[in-house]
């Protein structure tokens, strides 16, 4: 047994109302809480003592958030939809096949049966110094992400810097959702709102999401782009289990414009566009996108693939993803 080192309480409210009654109670009593969807990312972090809340509030009882619906030119995905449900859903396969592909590339079949789309777009940023045993972490001086005063990647970093932590963004599904102009519906103690998915992501590896404590994502609203083609490519050592060392989603719109979104490189995802000129996807467009992507990238050694290699692979993977799309366009 190596259960979470710190005991936590657990609750699984069945309705949003119950959820926020509980949240209120926690706030009133000063109990630290975290939300858990599928829990496949949260549990290892609890066991590694990266998280140590008083209570884990599971969202899996909120059955209403587990659905996929087509509404006009949007697909609405409930945040608690499991990745395997997403992969096999008819609407997703028909309108967002690259999203199904990206979801299918997450971790492993057993994890996809549990992990949710909401959890995947909220997945905690990773760094080879953080995602470690507590004893190993403790033998280094604690870093910013766990409340310490140092970054082992950027030794010169100090409190007050714009970016304190370089832990990298590793969601496989977010890039494509970003290209599809997705928005997320959020509810919280202060009520509900809809924001652009792009606005969910922040620059810093610690506060990497703009969701306020106590807020949850209920739905993701994904735009169906007429006559578009898209694809997702992922760099890993193995075919299963691995987080993306680099992930590239590419989208070609009906008008020929191309966009790509990257994951795995930086503290947040990056999105880049190239406009169609002269009626044909030109190499210049791809070169342009690759250059923008390279400029965006500030990879550090947060992954076991050295930064130089991952940087070199950006162009390779962007080309690979775009070529797949162009092949699709021909056939």
């Amino acid at each position, binding site marked *: *047994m190596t*259960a979470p080192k710190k005991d*936590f309480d657990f609750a699984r409210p069945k309705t949003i109302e119950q959820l926020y009654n509980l949240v209120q109670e926690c706030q009133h009593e000063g109990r630290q809480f975290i939300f858990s969807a599928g829990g496949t990312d949260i549990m*290892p972090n609890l066991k590694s003592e990266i998280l140590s809340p008083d209570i884990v509030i599971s969202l899996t009882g909120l059955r209403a958030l587990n659905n996929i619906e087509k509404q006009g030119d949007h697909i609405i995905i409930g945040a608690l939809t499991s990745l395997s449900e997403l992969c096999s859903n008819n609407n997703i396969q028909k309108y967002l096949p690259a999203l199904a592909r990206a979801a299918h590339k997450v*971790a492993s*079949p057993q994890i996809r049966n549990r992990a949710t789309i909401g959890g995947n777009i909220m997945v905690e940023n990773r760094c080879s110094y953080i995602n470690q045993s507590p004893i190993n972490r403790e033998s280094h001086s604690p870093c910013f992400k766990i409340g310490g005063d140092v970054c082992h990647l950027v030794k010169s970093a100090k409190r007050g810097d714009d970016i304190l932590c370089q832990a990298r963004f590793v969601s496989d599904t977010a890039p494509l959702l970003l290209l599809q102009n997705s928005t997320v519906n959020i509810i919280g103690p202060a009520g509900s709102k809809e924001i652009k998915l792009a606005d969910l992501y922040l620059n810093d590896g610690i506060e990497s999401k703009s969701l306020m404590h106590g807020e949850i994502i209920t739905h993701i609203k994904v735009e169906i782009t007429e006559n578009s083609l898209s694809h997702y490519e992922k760099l890993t050592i193995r075919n299963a*289990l691995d987080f993306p060392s680099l992930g590239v989603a590419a989208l070609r719109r009906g008008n020929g414009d191309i966009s790509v979104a990257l994951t795995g490189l930086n503290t947040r995802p990056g999105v880049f566009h190239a406009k169609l000129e002269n009626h044909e996807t030109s190499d210049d467009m791809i070169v342009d996108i690759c250059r923008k992507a390279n400029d965006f990238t500030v990879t550090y050694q947060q992954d076991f693939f050295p930064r130089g290699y991952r940087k070199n692979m950006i162009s390779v993977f962007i080309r690979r993803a775009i070529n797949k799309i162009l092949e699709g366009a021909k056939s």
Partner: protein
Amino acid sequence: MKLLNLTINGRKHTKAVSPSMTLLDFLREELNLTGTKNGCDKGACGCCSVMIDDKPMLSCLLPALEAEGAAITTIEGIAKGNALHPVQEAMIEMGAIQCGFCTPAMVINGVHMLAKNNNPDDDEVKECISATVCRCTGYNSIEKALHLAASKMRRAAHDGS
């Protein structure tokens, strides 16, 4: 402690558990169902696979209380009495079991795949076991076993119809 109600291998259980206990520890320590193995406890080896409402999941990544009301099948619930499941028979027949530590997980995942599709291709078989780490075999024998089990199940389905 909180009360947990669930069905395991067809048997109903009600037990008080610590909220931070994982389903894996609940199975192994509270119910003595030690067939489900703890290989890494962090969701990266697949050894703790069980079926929850007919889907394989990692029991180490789940607080036991998450399984409230669920129907769980562990390796102990796969054979029917003395009659082994075709996947189990095939694993034995193909020499796909050495130290055996990953075997329960391989069986759980294989049984699930074949229940959905008794005519899987090579890629489907590979994917089915792709996230369960085995250090004794080189996986080929396990893949062969799943193909053999599939053919046995197809034959049985054909004979039965």
